[in-house]
């Protein structure tokens, strides 16, 4: 049985869903495999170009075999140039070969899809054609956003026809739950589209560790080595007077605060509230009193040479677009999927035809 996990756009949580399904089924005693036909995050590991996502999943699921058996095609600069030159790439064969071989040794093979159902056409590997050639069923993962989601789901359903097993909505805000249950599900059901679940949006999954942030900012770590693994869910710029600062900071838990190195008042207000890390800009180190306070509270302080805008942009690029790698997040993600997705229903649906 092959289940292709597709998505409608980037950062929908496809990898998390695939990883969770694999873990849940493996726990139930099924042998589960995973192949990512087209890898778009090239990384050199032990002298080989592999896909970072696929390599992570292979390790997480303890899959045997070489990296290219998990991800037969990784998009590299050379490959892209070859495609531009019109050279024969013969990627389809490589993929089909890898998928069929993997499928032959497991009960369920999960395929990690591209960002949408068009990615790869340029390289001669249209996802729609692959799905059909490999005889997969498809699970569509969508980040729920009202009628935009309906456009995506209905289009995919039309293109995939009976191969679409159903849909999982991800990052569903609490205020959307009732609407999804009472309005969206009946609507899709009436069009024979199964909704297997609605995974609630979760701040932890969107968070970034202090360590990752420090590395992205090339920041100097002044204190708080022990707090490197703390998860940051949001960030806040401190540039107001203390009264309003406290008001704002209190509303935002598990945050990083970006402020000038000389703003002792803001830094103290940050340390007074739920703050995971202080980012001080302009290359100004904190004063000794702040430092001892931060040490007392175990809050790391990062100092960067750049200005506040730089730090803000860096954050925006990180938050909510992170690949899930940390143990804490994986556990939470799997737990969320187990609780909110009809995993058995998915299995039943693919077995019907598989």
């Amino acid at each position, binding site marked *: 049985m092959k289940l292709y996990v597709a998505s409608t756009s980037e950062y929908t949580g496809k990898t998390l869903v695939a990883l969770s399904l694999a873990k849940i089924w493996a726990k139930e005693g099924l042998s589960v495999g995973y192949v990512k036909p087209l890898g778009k995050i090239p990384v050199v590991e032990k002298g080989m170009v592999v896909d970072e996502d696929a390599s992570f999943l292979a390790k997480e699921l303890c899959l045997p075999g070489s990296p290219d058996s998990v991800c037969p095609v990784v998009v590299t600069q050379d490959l892209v140039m070859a495609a531009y030159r019109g050279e024969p790439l013969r990627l389809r064969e490589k993929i089909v070969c890898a998928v069929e071989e993997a499928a032959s040794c497991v009960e369920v093979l999960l395929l990690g899809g591209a960002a949408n159902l068009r990615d790869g056409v340029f390289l001669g590997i249209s996802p729609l054609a692959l799905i059909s050639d490999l005889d997969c069923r498809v699970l569509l993962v969508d980040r729920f*956003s*009202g009628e935009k989601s309906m456009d995506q789901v209905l289009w995919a359903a039309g293109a995939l026809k009976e191969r679409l097993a159903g849909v999982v909505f991800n990052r569903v*805000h*609490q*205020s*959307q739950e009732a*609407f999804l249950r009472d309005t969206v599900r009946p609507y899709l059901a009436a069009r024979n589209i199964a909704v297997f679940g609605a995974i609630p949006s979760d*701040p932890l999954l969107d968070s970034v560790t202090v360590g990752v942030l420090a590395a992205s900012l090339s920041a100097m770590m002044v204190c708080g080595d022990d707090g490197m693994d703390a998860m940051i869910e949001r960030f806040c710029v401190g540039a107001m*007077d*203390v*009264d309003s600062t*406290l*008001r704002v900071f*209190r*509303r*935002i*838990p598990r945050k990083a605060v970006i402020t000038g190195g000389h*703003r*002792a*008042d803001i830094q*103290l*207000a940050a*340390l*007074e*509230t*739920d703050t995971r890390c202080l980012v001080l800009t302009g290359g100004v180190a904190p*004063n*000794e*009193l*702040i*430092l*001892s*306070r931060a*040490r*007392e509270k175990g809050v790391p302080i990062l100092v960067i040479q750049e200005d506040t805008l730089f730090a803000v942009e860096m954050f925006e690029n990180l938050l909510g677009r992170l690949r899930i790698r940390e143990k804490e997040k994986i556990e939470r993600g799997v737990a969320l999927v187990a609780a909110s997705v009809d995993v058995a229903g998915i299995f039943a649906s693919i077995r019907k035809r598989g």
Partner: protein
Amino acid sequence: MIPVELFHPKSVAVIGASGKREKVGYGVFSNLVGGGFPGEISGVNPGGGELLGRRVYSSIGEIPGPVDLGVFVVPPPAIIEGIPRLAEKGMKAAVVISAGFKETGGDGAVFERALREAAGKASVRVLGPNCLGLINTHARLNASFAAGTPPAGSIAFFSQSGALCTAILDWAIGENVGFSKFISLGNKADISESDVMEYLSKDEETRVILGYVESVDDGLRFLDASREVTARKPVILVKAGSTAAGARAASSHTGSLAGSDRAYDAAFRQAGILRAETIEDLFDLALGFAMQPIPGGDRLLIVTNAGGPGILAADTAEKLGIPLAEINPALRGLLSGKLPPTASLGNPVDIIGDARADRYREVFSVVREDPSIDAVLVLLTPQAMTEPEKTARAAVAELSGSGKTAMASFLGEASVRDARKILSAGGIPQYPVPERAVRSLHGMLRYRRIREIPPMEREEVAGIRREAAETAIRAALAEGKRALGEEESRAILEAYGFLFPRHATARTSAEAVQAFQGMRGPVAMKIVSPDILHKTDVGGVRLGLADADAVAGAFVEITSCVRRMDPDAWIAGVSVQEMVKGGRELILGMSRDPQFGPLLMFGLGGIYVEVLKDVSFRVAPVSRREAVGMVREIRAYPLLASFRGSAPSDEGGIVDALLRISRLSLDFPEIQELDVNPVMVMPKGRGIRAIDCRMTIAEAVR
């Protein structure tokens, strides 16, 4: 409790006494010896020997007799080690002058913790570290490295800034102002301003307590302690960091987050503390309290030999709400018999420029017997016929001990210098300009009212469902929420007895119309979306919708506006709410201050809060009297009472609501901020209606 040994030791040991004049260890030792301390003084220094005729031991162990008070001027590790060893010799209190603790960060913070622990274990109370030391003039104890000792008197002064201590000491010595105690608090590792105030309130040598404060460590304790202290003695504090710039400076100076100045202001007011804006105010007030009795009433008589200064004094009195005493016919008769026909017999009494001392004396002798006068201000400008010294002596002779509160302002400098000394020595506070004298009297009158305030009583409010609020707060916290919107906050406030108008959430225009038909009168409609913070900015609010068409139209308009202006926002629906008519808009709120805890806020809605910042604050819990005070304090209060024939608002309803918020914020330390905005207050007897609200919560340590 501060042990009596801190201020009245029988024996003192200086750890780190030094023979080198440039060292602090010398300064402290020589102050102790030079101040004439009658008890045992010993020094500890590895070099041993003798210093200023006293024994210096090479270690603590060698001190033969008991030690009551240890003064430390050695590096931090030696202090931490020395405290238990001196405790074995009976030491009850220590003054740690040395720096190198919290203020330096890093290891310093570790040392400070260790110091606190060592002192706690040895049951020794510690003043400092990083302080100037202390002086008790009446015990002739100068355990400080200040330059000189002030004369003995009845003013006690404590300060978080050592440098300010030295400046004030110098001033006290220069002006010959008497002090009872001088206490430099330093880092306040152990002994805090509350401890000191509690001690001073029972100190018989102290009549008035002054202090300079940058931050208060335990706001609630401070509030409790001050309430008790101010019932006995006046407390006048200067609080530094009252502006944003000042607060920033204070933060980096003390390493503690300065609470909001509004919280300090409210707390001082509730605790009966007089807040001085400047050091000058502080001492002006102190002189009044130290030298004169608290006025028996507020009627002031001004006696002057020149019109101008008299008018200035009268202006200041009027501005501060001090009534000038009526000159009754009997008094007028007595005065007219003694004054020339050109004198003015109103108040100010102008005895004109040629007045010699005897003319002043005659007025004094009449007014001191007059029961319709509570306070006398004597003004003098040096003119050709004036006799400043003789006049000063007359004032002292007639007014000191007369039962009236007397103050003086002799203007000028060269020709009144000696007269001023006579006044001060005779117990009449004298000020360089009349305005300062009147302000000082104003402080004394305020204290007179403070003393009359009955002790605080806990207010009970009825109809509270605490469990319901607890369930709602627990649930929100479990979901990791911090900011609670209208729906969630409303459930909590309803459990605490707040009334809201009828409301419903509609997902379609038809549902909106249906909801409207079940309500009375016009409705307000508001977008419901987790992504929109400012509803009006995206066209998400419509008011006064009186019929079904308007409601359906508003639904379409609101949702269209939001879709256009914020396409990514999730629209959960539109809330339809009955409009409250005939009320006045208010704002009630609470914000948890880092030092004082829940700070309640009250104001009239709209421009009164936003533009005029016309709001009042109190620290919870508030008594009914304080809640009433909050309502009446705002400048716009007359609008609530009754304005141009409109019915007065339900003031009792507002007070009740403030008491409920006070209770709620004490019951749930999880609530960090709370806004009920707007609230409509109905005419008298019809209560209040909360319209919108929000809260911020956090896990709290209970």
